[in-house]
């Protein structure tokens, strides 16, 4: 427990003991079922249509090939991200080098960008060199890399200082690196799996690089054929295939997503400042992050640079700032609202799952399934629900909240993974000690559980918020008239706007987001990072 946390007062026995958090109970199943039911509710109208309608066969040769293509791209991108992201995360965990904090902010940038924008950046730089599967693999790998690196970092940070020091004494730096990498590998794999699932549902990069994927086939069914039933059947098919493929991952990850910390040792790992390893780690992390993450940004903003160099023309930047002023407030509301809902549900799920490996396996598998469903399924379902509902429900179903809710329900599995890990790192002895001293459940939740889960909740809130504002498809369909988000504004102008204007929008977006991330980080405190 945190050393400066206030002491738990010994009180009279309350109506409910904290032991319910450790004991089995029917409430766990009810909460888990309730949360998953709520998450799938927006998609239910179309899923029902998919099950009841009879139409074109789903598994045509073309669709089967597209599914295979999407899976191969997702798996290869996740593998590349794993190979590059784990060493990056280990370097950030073990070594303190100059610019480390700034690099961590830069590392988060790709998560702000919708993958199609990253794809355009790469495409502008590489010309036709990345056409074919290589393009989407590069784009998704650079998009998943931060997820893996942050998961590795979080996993490594869960190691006790004593363990790292012992490994260092026994095996030198190599020993410490191997220990950290091994310890963080399972969360890193979970992050890679998560990224792969999200990439399989995203049609953007496949279209930019002219590759047929399952997501682009589903998009064609939705947008070109207008056959929602077929699109829903295709979506369920893809999700089921991915679920089958991800089953072993869920099986592997669930029991090892976190091992409970022993109550006697929670001292954090101290980052090493030795000159040699620190310089090497810093240089490697910097090269990795700059090469993989800043390259597409250079492609995106180069037209603006040309415009500035040639004529010193600042009008595009000025227009981009106007656009930011118009949409910035709504963007923040969407990010914060979706992040909050995702964290609320994700952490409630984590508490309900508890320490049971079977429930954890089910929860992780169900989370992956939900993430694989295309966002349009829930968005169109939400429109149908709102249209059928009476006008008094509009503040919930046809407001900014509707978009926050839909995004939060879509992204709660991301928060759930954070929650599952954070919840599992609590020690059962805390609960037992509180129960022995008659601490009521409410007080235990307030004084012990909430502070323990808070850092993970903050990280999940940030990640879910970032992913939410990058989800263009849902925003396009659900944002209230006149309340577009900034990425949506970029998306809607990019087809015909001058390249320099699109570049200015991308630059302003990333710069402002990076500053906000930086400020938030400072507010929370560097020491936690």
């Amino acid at each position: 427990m945190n050393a400066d946390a206030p002491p738990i007062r010994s009180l009279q026995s309350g109506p409910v003991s904290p032991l319910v958090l450790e004991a089995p109970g029917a409430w766990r199943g009810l909460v888990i079922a309730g949360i998953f039911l709520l998450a799938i509710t927006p998609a239910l109208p179309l899923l029902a249509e998919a099950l009841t309608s009879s139409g074109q066969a789903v598994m045509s040769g073309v669709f089967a090939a597209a599914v295979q293509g999407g899976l191969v791209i997702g798996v290869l991108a996740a593998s590349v991200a794993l190979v590059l992201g784990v060493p990056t995360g280990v370097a950030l965990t073990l070594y303190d080098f100059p610019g480390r904090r700034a690099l961590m902010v830069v590392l988060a940038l790709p998560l702000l960008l919708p993958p199609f924008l990253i794809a355009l950046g790469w495409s502008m730089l590489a010309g036709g060199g990345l056409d074919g599967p290589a393009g989407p693999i590069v784009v998704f790998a650079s998009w998943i890399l931060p997820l893996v690196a942050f998961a590795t970092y979080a996993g490594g940070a869960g190691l006790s200082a004593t363990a790292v020091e012992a490994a260092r004494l026994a095996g030198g730096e190599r020993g410490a690196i191997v220990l950290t990498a091994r310890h963080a590998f399972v969360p890193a794999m979970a992050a890679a799996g998560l990224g792969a699932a999200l990439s399989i549902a995203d049609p953007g990069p496949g279209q930019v690089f002219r590759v047929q994927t399952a997501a682009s086939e589903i998009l064609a069914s939705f947008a070109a054929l207008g056959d929602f039933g077929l699109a829903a059947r295709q979506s369920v098919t893809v999700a089921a295939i991915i679920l089958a493929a991800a089953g072993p991952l869920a099986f592997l990850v669930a029991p090892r997503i976190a091992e409970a910390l022993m109550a006697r040792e929670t001292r954090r790992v101290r980052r090493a400042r030795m000159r040699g390893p620190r310089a090497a780690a810093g240089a490697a992390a910097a090269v990795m992050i700059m090469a993989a993450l800043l390259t597409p940004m250079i492609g995106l903003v180069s037209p603006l640079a040309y415009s500035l160099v040639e004529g010193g023309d600042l009008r595009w930047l000025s227009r981009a700032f106007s656009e930011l002023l118009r949409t910035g407030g709504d963007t923040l509301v969407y990010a914060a609202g979706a992040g909050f809902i995702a964290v609320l549900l994700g952490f409630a799920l984590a508490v309900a799952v508890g320490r049971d490996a079977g429930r954890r396996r089910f929860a992780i598998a169900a989370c992956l399934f939900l993430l694989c469903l295309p966002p349009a399924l829930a968005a169109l379902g939400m429109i149908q629900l709102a249209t059928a509902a009476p006008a008094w429900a509009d503040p919930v179903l046809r407001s900014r909240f509707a978009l926050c809710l839909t995004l939060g329900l879509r992204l709660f599995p991301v928060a759930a993974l954070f929650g599952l890990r954070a919840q599992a790192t609590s020690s059962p002895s805390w609960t037992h000690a509180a129960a022995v001293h008659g601490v009521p459940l409410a007080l235990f939740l307030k004084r012990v559980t909430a502070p323990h889960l808070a850092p993970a909740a903050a990280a999940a809130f940030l990640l879910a918020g970032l992913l939410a504002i990058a989800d263009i498809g849902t925003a396009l369909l659900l944002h209230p008239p006149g309340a577009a988000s900034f990425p949506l504004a970029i998306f809607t102008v990019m087809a015909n706007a001058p390249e320099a204007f699109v570049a200015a929008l991308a630059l302003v977006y990333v710069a402002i987001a990076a500053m906000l991330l930086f400020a938030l980080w400072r507010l929370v405190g560097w020491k936690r990072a």
Partner: protein
Amino acid sequence: MSRVFLIAIAALALVLALAVWRPWSGRDAGEVVVYTSVDDVFARPIAEAFQKETGVAVRLVPDTEEAKSTGLLNRLIAEKNRPQADVFWSGDPVRAEILKKQGVATPYKSPQADGLPAAFSDPQGYWTGFSARARVLIYNKDRVAAGDAPRSVMDLVNPRFQGRACLANPLFGTTSMHAAALFAVLGEEGAKRFFNEFLANGGQLASSNGDVRRLVAEGRCAIGVTDTDDANVALMEGKPIEIVYPDADGMGTLVIPNAAVLIAGGPNPENGERFIDYLLRPATEEALATSAAAQFPLRAGVAVPEEMITLDQMRPMEVDYTALAGRLEELNRGFLKDFADRAR
């Protein structure tokens, strides 16, 4: 910790309050909700001018022709029973016609439609066409000599452009409408032959018209077919391209008028009609002609930039726009889907 916690809770409460607060108020005399598939950069200045002139606030919901979303058309259809939109300003008449067929549109014959050619509007008044784009050929001047410049859409299958021609995915956007028009003009066999020969000639399928513009401007394709607004943006950026209005001595150039649609049961029908009236004015046609959209007026006598090709200077392809929508739905499920699959 507790202070930070309280601040966080207060901030989240504020966010949720803002989220539930509706930024527009449904049935409100002072506003109009406009969904548009016209690019934001072109539609917003017109909406802002309307707002300034009439005092009616415009809530604009733009879409894009980039084929990366399920689009506003699906949103409009899904909202049919209790629409949020008053007007759909469509970038092409096919999507307007689909709304008519789906029962989303309601007839409105604007007094401002005088002078607009009837051939570009729905005879029953469900949608009214105004300022138009055209489907044009663009070629890269560095890769194609002026003497070899393409003159017809059929040049996409000419062996001299083997492996160097590109076309956007015909399942989406204005290319889908162009494909349906080619089927109407060339006949079933002729159009199928054209698309099949395009593939046999090594033609490339781009993700959108903007992508075609980029591929040609970068020289990765020598020629391509796109819309006049895409081509004009490339010219304004100084890209080495040239525009050709195709088939001037043959089947003609496909003209794509904007279409103004009044939504049935929209929350502010009177303001919706006012907005449509505003769109159909000669002054709006002039504004769209002088903007980067470079949309030529359908009316005669509207002032346009000197270099603009107007309707009376080209040979428009003769097509029945209302018939194209039905044809397109059938083609999308059949030949065009198969073509797009084979092109990958």
